[in-house]
């Protein structure tokens, strides 16, 4: 486990199955209270070149709850980028102020570039439509917590599978654990061919359907994503699919009743509020798991957690 100290966390592509296991196990230790104050004496820069409430606040909460200090900015207007400073120079400067860096940026590959310029570990908190690895780690931890295992789970992924980076990363991660995956989407929002080709190349089969009821009654997890309006160039295309799914208690019953419902949040209208009270609904717990997951990750890369 010592291998994580000083390491950059940029992409699921860099992570082995052992790495994912280490993060999930470390998160369990943190959540059970076994690693308090692991960031005491550490200072973490949280730099958001694009606004994001949930991810930023959960990173800040993770740092504060682990006894660390945090500084940074929540939007590019608050940084000297608005004065024309290059991204590279911002990274070269801030690396001297902190023990680790958390970066969200709208440009794909920004965190990878930062990791080449920084002398402290860089954690990618989302780079455009590319990667958001900490979301996947907390998803994995939530499933492990729920089922006591990750191997061989049956997962349905529903919604915007074309533009949703969360489901691309999750599929890539679950391929390590021999998951049986069903992709549920309208025809124009199907999982991209490149993502499917990667799964097939690793010997992972999957099924594609259009309605959740077609996924069968033995799913362990139904992972729902929002149809992301901001990713559509054509408003008419967005409207044609905007409200195509709405999970209700009736749908949950049709899926066999024991399926766990997950969602990276925020939701719009793809899950009816009536579902929130079902024991199947674990999406808020999933969101709360963002804090111990990010605590564990920061602990591992700074060396505060062994």
């Amino acid at each position: 486990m010592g291998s994580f100290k000083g390491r950059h966390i940029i992409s699921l592509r860099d992570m082995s199955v052992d790495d994912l296991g280490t993060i999930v196990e470390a998160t369990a230790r943190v959540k059970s209270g076994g690693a308090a104050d692991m960031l005491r004496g550490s200072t973490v820069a949280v730099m958001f070149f694009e606004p994001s409430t949930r991810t930023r606040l959960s990173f800040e909460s993770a740092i504060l709850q682990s006894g660390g200090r945090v500084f940074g900015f929540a939007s590019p207007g608050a940084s000297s980028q608005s004065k024309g400073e290059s991204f590279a120079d911002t990274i070269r400067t801030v690396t001297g102020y902190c023990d680790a860096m958390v970066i969200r940026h709208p440009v794909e590959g920004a965190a990878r570039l930062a990791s080449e310029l920084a002398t402290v570990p860089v954690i990618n908190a989302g780079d455009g439509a590319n990667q958001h690895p900490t979301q996947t780690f907390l998803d994995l931890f939530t499933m492990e917590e729920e089922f006591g295992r990750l191997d061989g789970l049956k997962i349905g992924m529903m919604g915007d599978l074309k533009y949703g980076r969360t489901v691309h990363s999750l599929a890539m991660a679950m391929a390590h654990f021999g998951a049986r995956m069903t992709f549920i989407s309208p025809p124009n929002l199907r999982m991209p061919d490149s993502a499917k080709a990667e799964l097939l190349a690793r010997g992972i089969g999957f099924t594609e359907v259009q309605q959740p009821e077609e996924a069968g009654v033995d799913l362990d997890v139904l992972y729902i994503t929002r149809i992301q309006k901001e990713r559509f160039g054509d408003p008419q295309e967005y409207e044609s699919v905007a409200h195509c799914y709405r999970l209700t208690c009736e749908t949950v019953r049709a899926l066999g009743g024991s399926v766990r419902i997950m969602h990276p949040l925020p939701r719009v209208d793809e899950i009816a509020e009536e579902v929130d009270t079902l024991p199947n609904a674990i999406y808020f717990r999933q969101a709360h798991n963002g804090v111990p997951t990010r605590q564990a990750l920061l602990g591992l890369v700074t060396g505060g957690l062994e």
Partner: protein
Amino acid sequence: MTERTYKVYSITNGTVIDHIPTPLALKVVRILGLGQEGILTIGMGFTSKRLPGGKDIVKIENRVLSRSETDMIALIAPEATINIIKDGAVLEKRRISLPEGVTGILRCPNPNCATQQLGARPDFRLVDPVGPVYRCRFCERATKVDADLLMHATRD
């Protein structure tokens, strides 16, 4: 009209790149970053048994290209063959194969990639020799290589 005795001058020392499908010779020159040094002879549109659409030839005098340089040619012209010439004789016949990594030669077509927006130096890794398909190390998108993605070559 008398028949010409030769179509492209032979060279005594250097590198001959043969069997480049017409009209890719200029792109091969570009991929190798040639043209600023020494004598370069380019012939285009020769008939070829192996290439029905015709072949181009590039001859570089007094310079022996390294294997890592000639492998870059495989990105756009995998059929090309390399002859290294010394004292007028063929010293080495070389086949080319796709490079595992390509730095600074291909442009990532994703407009939202750090290589286009933040000045990162393009860097690709081979994903699939059919195509061929390379993945950008920054935005992680897989791209089928074509000649339009060539940048002016830079030397390390």
